[in-house]
């Protein structure tokens, strides 16, 4: 299949049309921004067994499924299970100051008692981060969200916990599909925009108990 600008334009138009259609025919969907004022700001953990999962601003509110349709509830549950099985304690915070997965992961790591955190965008992209690393560096990055499964999220949790314990970690086998970019580029961009719209610089992060 040849991909050119025109084709992408066409696809974009169709997708935008469909999404607008879903939004009960509203021609200019302007998602009302959720305000998290009054929510408890996330605290810095002191438990060395803690691994913090930092989810994106639109997580479980504006976006409820990952890019390939996994329920975010199940995704979170599996990451938590992976952490718990390794004997560590999961905690979830919602990062509001940014929608960039690496910065989210770093914020989560800085809040985490073990210094290891997971950044999880609502579309499913994830990263394992450590508090002393540069933002764009990381321990493990899982960039191709459309290829993720619940098992791989479980494994992300387990690996993050192992990093937290200082154990030898075998990085997850990377899966790669060159067609993913073409098939999901538009959807990924739209989901990312939806997430970025919820960014709130005034409230950096809050505790997130919603499952």
């Amino acid at each position: 299949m040849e991909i050119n600008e025109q084709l992408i334009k066409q696809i974009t138009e169709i997708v935008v049309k469909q999404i607008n259609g879903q939004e009960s025919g509203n021609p200019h969907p302007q998602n009302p921004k959720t305000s998290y004022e009054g929510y408890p700001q996330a605290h810095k953990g002191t438990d060395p067994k803690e691994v913090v999962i930092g989810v994106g601003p639109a997580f479980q509110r504006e976006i409820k499924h990952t890019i390939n349709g996994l329920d975010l509830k199940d995704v979170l549950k599996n990451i938590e299970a992976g952490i718990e099985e390794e004997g560590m304690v999961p905690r979830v915070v919602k990062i509001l100051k940014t929608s960039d997965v690496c910065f989210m992961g770093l914020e989560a790591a800085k809040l985490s008692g073990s210094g290891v955190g997971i950044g999880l965008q609502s579309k499913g992209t994830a990263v394992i981060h450590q508090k002393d690393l540069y933002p764009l560096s990381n321990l493990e990055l899982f960039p191709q969200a459309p290829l993720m499964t619940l098992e791989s999220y479980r494994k992300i949790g387990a690996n993050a916990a192992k990093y937290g314990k200082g154990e030898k970690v075998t990085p997850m086998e990377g899966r790669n599909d060159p067609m993913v970019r073409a098939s999901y580029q538009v959807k990924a961009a739209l989901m990312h925009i939806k997430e970025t719209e919820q960014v709130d610089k005034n409230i950096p992060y809050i505790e997130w108990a919603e499952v």
Partner: protein
Amino acid sequence: MNYIAGVDIGNSTTEVCIAALENGRLHFLGSASKMTTGTKGTQANVAGILAALKEACEKLNMSAGDISLIRINEAAPVIGDTAMETITETIITESSMIGHNPSTPAGAGQAVGRTISLGHLKQGNSYTPYIVMADKSHSYEEVADTLNRYAQARNVTGMILQADEAVLVENRLERKIPIVDEVRYIDKIPEGKLAALEVAMAGSGVRMLSNPYGIATLLELDAQETKMVTPIAKSLIGKRSAVVIKTPHGNVREQILPAGEIYIEAEKDQTVNIDAGADAIMRALSKAGDIRDIHGQEQTNVGNMLARIKKGMSTVSDENQEEIRITDLLAVDTLAPVVISGALAGETCLEKAVGIAAMVKTRQLPMEKIADELRSQLKTKVKVAGVEAVMASLGAMTTPGTRLPLAILDLGGGSTDAAVMTSKGTVRMVHQAGAGELVTMLIQIELGLHSRNTAEQIKRYPLAKVESLFHMRLENGAIEFFPDAIEPKYFGSVVLLTGKDMIRIDEDIPMEKIVAVRREAKRKVFVTNAVRALQAVAPEQDLKNIPNVVLVGGSAEDFEIPEMLMEKFAEYRIVCGRGNIRRTEGPRNAVATGLVLSYLGDSHVDDE
């Protein structure tokens, strides 16, 4: 002024040394070392020689054409190879046990009960103790809920899970029980059988099930049955979790594979069975005297192994397989982790194995052809001069603090060679199988590594464990901090320190285990071989008659082998140490230096 170059073609590296001759005195100017191109002794070597000469000349601001004489060694016509064969096999019959090391079992302790699947728990009764088995179709929540529901109605004492969810289930249970997880073939465990389950406390192995009387206590066995379960207990030593199931004929059996016999054709012919182990083989070898050939019983493991070595050699040396003769062997006992047949959780068992290095004598290598090729390419005089061991001894003499009689030990990749030069100038020498490559193979087998390359690197470099982004613990226990945060890919890993950078080991093996295996492999090969080789060349076969031993060759550069040999030879009051050729070269370049030195002693009629 005349420039003379010495060229040493080795199995793995080609070394050159350049000296200037002025008024009958030699001044050493420089040296270089390059990878040997092609098999030692073939014309393909010329490329490597030229590259090494060029490098040495560039350092001296001259061109290879300025050299007036090149001296090449008469390379020793031996090539070595290695092979390994397991000689025992462990089989579990009737799914009688599980013993593995899941990373996270839960709830330390022991339990006894009848095996029952989660689905059948409803049909059970309230007075029988049960060990519940759940396959991975049940989620941890479902399993925990079911167990909590039956907490009063059923007596569940322990649990076996297929998925890696022991901690998850245990955290949700109202009454804590020991749980073994990651049992891959859970469906093979029979239901309704009496079973004993144990999860060890963190940091230790199972205690009850690795003890025959412990099993007897838990499963109420009589004396006869207790005797039967001894192999099970033995195979569970050191495991983090274990299950023993009482079945009428279930057991663990160690079977000795028909490994075969080795036939040594020599002054006194010898036959030795591989099962007897490495020591017996080496004893037979030393009894045999001068060896003509060694071969193995046909259609057996060792027969195939030796045939494979000969076949490989005939390809390398371009000779008929019938003409290839193995003239020396080094056998080493080792343990290889092998998956147990009939295992339920993919358990491995350390099976006995024998590693063998064999050495093959080939006909004289065609060094003259290499000399011709060099002559035509460089338009300079090239001479094939001297036997390798003699040249190495000459070169080794340039190490400060040595005197005659002097012994050299050339620790190479394929063979360990020894030579003794007496004060009268006579030289005795011996080539023996087993050196660096055998060490690499032993490391690879015992650690169960996938790549030979990783094993080679483990052999070469010291280890460290990266404990944070800012520091690591070295294998001697010291802590070292990094000036800057380290790359995250090393986080938590065991790494090799090459001096320049770090190499991550992908396998999950504790640093202490790697160190132990590495040191043991080096000791088994090099210490055994060094003593054997020196005994063969020592005057009156007595090591005490050798005052100096100089270690040369690639493996003498190793960071711990010279120390091991030093410790060993201290027993015989021998001065032993890593050579320092011409005070500058370390253990390398001995042969090339010897070649240049020997020019002074030669009659130069043909050179004029």
